[in-house]
């Protein structure tokens, strides 16, 4: 039967008619969570391989992981509207809630990243008391005795962290565009790719070139996952993938995520491997990939808030 809505009395700001429950802080956290997860996976891999050529990459992952995670946690905390109860996340575990899983994954990740961070305390720009330095050195020597378990745990927890950022959205079935089992693996691969891009920013050109084939492969897998996700997401039409491909987010999706974040970087990296472009030109690729990975989270999050059953 034809019907026309004339008026609505009793809308709550930020809920109806437009849902604005999560904002850029959550999208930023989803990006940083994936990035840190990817860095933990790389760090674990570097530790297990024990090759000298990976030393610089491992040091960068060690030094960047904890501050980045702290930034992500700060964004999450900023989003809470009842901050005085934030400690409640750590007094319960609810298996049905991805956010509860995420709280505990973040807690374990903080410990692991902390253990890796403190081994570089001498690089810190401030002087620590001798007693603290002795304590940090003792902890570092202890972690050296359990290096393989720490590396393995780093890879497992990093994978969990990046996957959980996808599960956080995909389990909310009220938003059709999030209701896909492919979001967690998409965010995982994107997280690993963005961590690789982050490391490339700091590595010498030779190491950068060695990472390029892996980076290209990750981008191609991410592209395949992205389009499979769009083709299989549950609710077709204007509240489904059309929001991304032809709707209000199409410009950002195609320009920032697909072309800027995946196709152009892949083309640059393939060109670099084949010596078609100079390394200087190819150095843009990691920046584009990081922007694309962030854009993916922003676009999917905000499109999801507009996507209703």
């Amino acid at each position, binding site marked *: 039967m034809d019907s*026309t809505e004339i*008026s609505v*009395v009793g809308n709550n700001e930020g809920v109806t008619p437009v849902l604005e429950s999560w904002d850029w802080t959550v999208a930023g956290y989803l990006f940083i969570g994936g990035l840190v997860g990817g860095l933990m996976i790389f760090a674990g891999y570097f530790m297990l391989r024990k090759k000298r050529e990976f030393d610089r990459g491992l040091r960068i992952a060690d030094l960047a992981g904890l501050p980045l995670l702290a930034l992500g946690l700060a964004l999450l905390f900023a989003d809470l509207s*009842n901050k005085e*109860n934030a400690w409640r996340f750590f007094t319960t575990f*609810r298996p*049905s809630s991805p956010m509860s899983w995420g709280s505990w994954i973040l807690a374990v990740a903080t410990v692991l990243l902390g253990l890796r961070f403190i081994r570089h305390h001498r690089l810190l720009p401030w002087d620590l008391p001798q007693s603290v330095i002795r304590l940090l050195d003792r902890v570092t020597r202890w972690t050296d005795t359990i290096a393989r378990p720490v590396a393995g745990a780093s890879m497992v927890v990093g994978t969990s962290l990046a996957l959980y950022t996808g599960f956080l959205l995909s389990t909310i*079935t009220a938003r059709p565009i999030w209701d896909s089992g492919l979001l967690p693996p998409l965010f995982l691969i994107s997280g690993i790719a963005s961590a690789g891009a982050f490391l490339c920013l700091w590595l010498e050109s030779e190491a950068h070139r060695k990472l390029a084939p892996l980076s290209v492969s990750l981008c191609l897998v991410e592209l395949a996952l992205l389009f499979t996700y769009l083709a299989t997401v549950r609710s077709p039409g204007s509240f489904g993938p059309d929001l991304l491909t032809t709707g209000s987010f199409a410009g950002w999706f195609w320009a920032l995520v697909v072309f800027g974040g995946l196709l152009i970087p892949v083309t640059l990296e393939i060109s670099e491997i084949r010596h078609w472009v100079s390394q200087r030109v190819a150095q843009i690729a990691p920046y584009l990939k990081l922007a694309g990975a962030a854009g993916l989270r922003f676009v999917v999050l905000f499109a999801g808030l507009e996507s*209703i059953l």
Partner: protein
Amino acid sequence: MTRWAMTLDVDLCLGCEACIVACSAENEVPVGQFRTRMRTTTVGTFPNLRTEFRVESCFHCADAPCIDVCPTGATYQTADGIVLVDPAKCTGCKACVTACPYGMRYVHRDGWVDKCTFCEHRLAAGRQPACVQTCPTGARVFGDLDDEADPINDALVKARSVSVVNPDTGANPHLFYLNSQFTNGPSERLETT
């Protein structure tokens, strides 16, 4: 076993908004925020038009998606089916606001997430919810679906049609619209007992 639910007979609703005012006053809802909202909809094709007032509040879904996503257990369901929020446990993460397919939750000015409680405090004192008691036409009936003698079951049986808002969500809402020609999604006769 008690299973609380509410019906709203669209034929009887005048759109006077007394229920919205009563709800806000009873539950001290901050000015500018609402636990109850009213959609005014014109149904049909000219000249056969009919205006329907659909008053909505938390549907206290049997399979409420807001409960599963809550990381601290602040959102929970009582044994008699009422979905409640414990402000002392709520972190304001807004996962439940995002997960509610009906947009029935909001962030209270004090930070925690708020919504209709079926006036649980009044039920405990043996009284009806404020919106039910204040309705001048008796459009609302509140009662126990598991009690065959309860007037709500009589209202459900006698109605020309029984529908819920968007049953496709799978949440199984417990606010039933009687005699409505319009719902935001497929309308269907529901088995309620």
